């Protein structure tokens, strides 16, 4: 392992992290002894049984919550609060109901520096950028609609655009394609892969779909049941850009099968510390 030599280039370093929701009785231990690293520009996926703490990891890395134990650093600094290099697509794709879809997508540019400093001057340019993004995910024509006029899958795509608009260095995607039909989903895999190849952001994607994980990622991490920790990691070394047909190759199916076994294992495994 050359982990030691690489340790400086890790954008994210999660070291023996634990997280407990609440205190005392009735508290929930969501993560215990979770460790993994993500290098700059790497695309990784997290898979694991429902409720194992995947979304919790997103909240920790984004700085929305502090860790209960262990160390978590992003860009070499311990995470103490939200960072503006991060773009998140939350599992629940909430949007601000009083803003149009376009304005929702533009929101990060109004908040994050340096964009907010010249939001007024470059408004048209920004709007064009947002429109282009919405078009890529198939939402052209819905820019002026309000969130309650969109379907669940459309909101999910819009919130993906919101995560991308300020071209963050670190993307946290929590089941970004969960409520889409198979074809739209596969189309967006292509979109995401292209975007990643072009801009090389670091991406942590959470998914329940193994094909998705294997197709898109450089590395897939399998988590155990709650309290979640990393059970297994698997490098995926197919050439990029990957054509969609690759998902039917034997080598691809083999990787997916391999991961599947470990998820099965993870579901059954209840860690000694598991309590309520």
């Amino acid at each position, binding site marked *: 392992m050359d982990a030691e030599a690489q340790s400086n280039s890790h954008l994210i370093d999660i070291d023996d992290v634990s997280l407990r929701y609440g205190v005392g009785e009735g508290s929930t231990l969501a993560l215990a002894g979770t460790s993994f690293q993500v290098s700059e520009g790497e695309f990784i996926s997290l898979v694991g049984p429902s409720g194992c703490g995947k979304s919790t990891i997103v909240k920790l890395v*984004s*700085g*929305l919550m502090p860790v209960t134990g262990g160390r978590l650093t992003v860009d070499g600094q311990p995470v103490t*609060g*939200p*960072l*503006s290099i*991060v773009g*998140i697509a*939350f599992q*629940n794709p*909430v*949007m*601000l*109901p*009083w803003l149009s879809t376009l304005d929702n997508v533009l*929101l*990060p540019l*109004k*908040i*994050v520096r340096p964009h907010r400093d010249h939001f007024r001057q470059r408004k048209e340019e920004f709007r064009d950028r947002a429109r282009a993004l919405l078009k890529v995910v198939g939402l052209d024509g819905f820019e002026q609609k*309000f969130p*309650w*006029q969109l379907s669940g899958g459309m909101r999910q795509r819009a919130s993906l655009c*919101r995560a991308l608009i300020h071209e963050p260095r670190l993307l946290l995607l929590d089941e970004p394609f969960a409520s889409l039909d198979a074809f739209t989903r596969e189309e967006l895999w292509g979109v995401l892969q292209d975007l990643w190849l072009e801009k090389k952001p670091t991406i942590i994607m959470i998914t329940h779909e193994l094909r998705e994980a294997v197709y898109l990622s450089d590395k897939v991490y399998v988590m155990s049941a709650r309290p979640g920790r990393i059970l297994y990691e698997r490098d995926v070394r197919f050439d990029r850009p990957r054509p969609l047909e690759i998902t039917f190759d034997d080598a691809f199916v083999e990787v997916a099968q391999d991961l599947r076994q470990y998820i099965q294992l993870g579901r059954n495994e209840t860690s000694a510390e598991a309590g309520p």
Partner: protein
Amino acid sequence: MSTGPLVKTKPAEKADEFAPQEGLFSERNLRRASPYLFTLFLFVVWELGCLAFDVAEYVLPRPTQFFEILLTRAPDLWGHSVQTLYTTVLGFALGVVTGVIIGIAVGSSKLVYAAAYPLLVGFNSIPKVAIVPILVIWFGIGTVPAVITSLVISLFPVVANVATGLATTQAELEDILRALGASKWDTLVHVGLPSSLPYFFASLKISISLAFVGTVVSETIAANTGIGSMMIVASSNFDVPLVFAGLVILAVMGVALYAVFAVLEQRMTFWAQTRPDEMG
């Protein structure tokens, strides 16, 4: 949207989108006209009742009698009405501004919320009539105590609703902003305040009605002008039709101001209304 103490829940107008849109007497037009027709109907019953039972004017005047007064004494009544309206709107406006400021302070900090809310409830349960004599001692009689009374009385609903609106802002909405590294101020401006707007506008409708009560109460105790004081003078002269004319003016002004804020609410918080059909 989450619900709060004073917040409207408007039932969906189910029939609307399916109702046939026939001419003048469509169900929809009929429903629109119904409040006016019903009011007219009540006045007619009142008029006929008084005539049938031969009720004396100084006990219960007939509508035609006090509507006549409205016309014949219009210039005089106009002056009093303007005074009352002015006092109410001024007190209300000051109350809303103060209320929003206090509401934001109380609602955006859990600590202040916990500390100040019980006090505000206690303060609100004091009947506001009770403070008028104190105001008279401090400010004499006239416009000032009336403005202050309507200010004080319209303050609480705004404070309570703005604070509640802020305190109950969906955490998920705030997280969108927080995750971008937004400051507390940004989060307040982009999420807290907009999401409290439905609460705020609901409180305006309540406050404007209360402001009226405040003004009139104060006028009846400590003023020489305004509808309230006019009614006191009229009743001590046993000019009962004039008293009723005053009541009609108050009712009309109250409904009109309420309507203004109801329309404003509809405009500003369309995104939070239940919607039977798509907004255009």
